[in-house]
């Protein structure tokens, strides 16, 4: 393999993130089990296992709903970016909770000596032709397999090995997994348990995630239409002063990728808007310690040539920039990654 493995880089922020996450999950599960026992104490072991199945299943659904909301929320409001940087740990924990939900289901059959019934249930082929009565456990199992695939490829090794675009395509299957989970619950417990909390939780969760994705996607459309270009194809970004100091304006060639035009005092440079780590939106970041810093995971690049500061070796494509009639213009044609391309503009 051409990609080296590096251990996870822990930081104080990651410890806090994971600590809050673990505490939240533990509290939810304990509260769920505690309240369930208070309302209806389980009469036997299978009933006690059933409470665990519900606690872990509903927890996994809520976690998946939150994970899928973080992306569009971060697009709509930068405050939510602080939830984005360690989202992969959230995803791996969600798989673990979903796995325990499935494990307790097997234990539930075993506690009654009915494990063969599970096999019979899954291999009753006539049920596969029904809508109500479809073997919903198979849908849950398919979702669990997808979550396993995503959790097992969450490490940066797989991100580098597959390349960021291919990794992103793979991880977009989480949407399919979420749809399967909704149907697993809708065709499963919702059919025989009349507790109104179940359809309410399902509908509210799915509606929130869907609306957030549709709204964020709608707002992103304008950025993909392309910025007006001059006769010679150069894209007009605006007067130098319209680019906030240490920040960027994002422009895009029609049909092309976005370009981040940064200003650092009198220096103006244009870089690909795709961070080489996870293709995060570089142009939504800031210049920190003299380097353009990705808002997602803090990867840094020099504005002058798009190279990461030593000892790092990542590079971004740069774009030629010029001043014409007092306006900053950017060529839509990328230079090879790491090519110096920034310019100095007169102050004032």
């Amino acid at each position, binding site marked *: 393999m051409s990609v080296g493995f590096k251990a996870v880089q822990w930081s104080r922020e990651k410890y806090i993130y994971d600590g809050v996450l673990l505490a939240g999950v533990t509290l939810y599960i304990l509260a769920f089990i505690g309240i369930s026992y208070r309302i209806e104490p389980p009469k036997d072991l299978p009933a006690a296992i059933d409470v665990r199945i519900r606690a872990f299943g509903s927890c996994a659904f809520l976690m998946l709903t939150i994970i899928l909301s973080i992306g569009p929320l971060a697009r709509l409001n930068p405050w939510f970016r602080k939830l984005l940087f360690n989202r992969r740990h959230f995803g791996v924990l969600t798989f673990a909770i979903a796995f325990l939900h499935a494990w307790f289901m097997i234990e539930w059959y075993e506690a009654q000596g009915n494990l063969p019934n599970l096999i019979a249930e899954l291999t009753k082929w006539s049920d596969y032709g029904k809508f109500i009565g479809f073997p919903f456990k198979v849908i849950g199992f398919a979702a669990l397999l997808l979550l396993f695939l995503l959790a097992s490829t969450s490490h940066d090794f797989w991100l580098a090995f597959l390349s960021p675009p291919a990794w992103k395509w793979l991880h977009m299957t989480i949407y*399919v997994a979420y*749809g399967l989970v909704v149907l697993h619950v*809708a*065709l499963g417990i*919702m059919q025989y348990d009349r507790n109104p909390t179940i359809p309410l939780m399902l*509908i509210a969760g*799915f509606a929130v995630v869907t609306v957030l994705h*549709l709204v964020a996607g709608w707002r992103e459309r304008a950025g993909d239409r392309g910025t007006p270009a001059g006769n010679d194809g150069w894209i007009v970004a605006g007067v130098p002063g319209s680019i906030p100091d240490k920040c960027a304006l994002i422009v895009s060639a029609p049909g092309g990728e976005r370009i981040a035009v940064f200003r650092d005092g009198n220096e103006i440079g244009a870089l690909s808007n*795709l961070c080489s780590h996870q293709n995060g939106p570089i142009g939504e970041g800031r210049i920190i310690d003299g380097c353009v810093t990705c808002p997602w995971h803090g990867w840094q690049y020099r504005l002058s040539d798009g190279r990461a500061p030593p000892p790092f070796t990542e590079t971004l494509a740069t774009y030629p920039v010029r001043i014409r009639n007092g306006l900053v213009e950017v060529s839509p044609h990328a230079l090879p990654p790491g090519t110096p391309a920034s310019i100095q503009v007169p102050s004032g």
Partner: protein
Amino acid sequence: MRRAHRTAHRMLWPVLALLVGLGLTLSLVMRPPPAPPAAAEEQR
């Protein structure tokens, strides 16, 4: 995200919302009526 990913997002979500929303609605509408208490106890 690349342009292609954003385009795929914009195409995928309305389809997913429609399919899953339809499945969810049908599973609610076609729910069997609640079993009488004795039968419900049996089912557990």
